[in-house]
């Protein structure tokens, strides 16, 4: 019987290796029905997702909090080309009777080498692809800013 924790760990390793070296290699991991929410921006479909992730990603350093209006605005938006993920933790649980797996990752993102690393969290739901492997159905990515 397939071990969902092993599958999750192997997937995460492959995912970030692909992401950090050649983002186009992520394409086979998504399908037409896949969803990505990247820093609040929703996208659907493998092609659109890879387009969003390819080459340049805009990531804000620190948000400006307007407490009165309860809004966050990003004062500075940095496009970057090189990124390296450092996974701190991977948790997995079975998500459905059809063999889905929920994965929660926490880690650090190093952008263009000389910048300060940022903490992030990413959740995936992996679904069996019917051919012995898995694809990403749900994908949510969030930077986690220091609490204080």
């Amino acid at each position, binding site marked *: 019987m397939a071990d969902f924790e092993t599958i999750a760990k192997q997937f995460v390793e492959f995912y970030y290796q692909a992401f950090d070296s050649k983002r186009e290699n992520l394409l086979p991991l998504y399908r037409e029905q896949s*969803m990505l929410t990247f820093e609040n921006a929703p996208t659907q479909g493998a092609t659109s997702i890879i387009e969003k992730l390819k080459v340049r990603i805009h990531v804000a350093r620190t948000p400006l909090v307007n407490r009165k209006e309860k809004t966050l605005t990003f004062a500075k938006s940095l496009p970057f080309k090189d990124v390296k993920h450092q996974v701190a933790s991977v948790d997995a649980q079975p998500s*459905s009777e059809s063999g889905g797996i929920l994965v929660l990752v926490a880690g650090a993102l190093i952008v263009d080498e000389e910048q300060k*690393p*940022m903490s992030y969290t990413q959740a995936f*739901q992996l679904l069996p692809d019917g051919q012995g492997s898995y694809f990403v159905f749900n994908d949510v990515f*969030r930077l986690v800013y220091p*609490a204080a």
Partner: protein
Amino acid sequence: MADFENIAKQFVEYYYKAFDSDRASLAALYGQDSMLTFEATPLQGVGNIIQKLQELPFKEVQHQVATLDAQPADAQGSILVVVSGALLVEAEKRPMSYAQTFQLKPRDGSYYVFNDVFRLVYPAA
């Protein structure tokens, strides 16, 4: 706003209000098949889950939600929710960042927590 987003927001608000005021009342949000992984400790079933949450080494806690994202998780109305925020615990002077993901499944006209994963997120550098 999409329905699943509304449901997710309402759920998260209710969840943390219950957590921060009366942890035992969270029992209504879980089922016998629910799973919680709390800082790497896996648990199953509402009884074990509530026991774990009540045994956490603090009396007073306050969750402050910074971000909330939701996506449909299947064709039956299940919802994936991803939360990031800060946790203020009585003994600690500084709040801690955390990430939590839930999968909500429909039950009797409402929703319950089927999957729950909680992790503290430490500063990257």
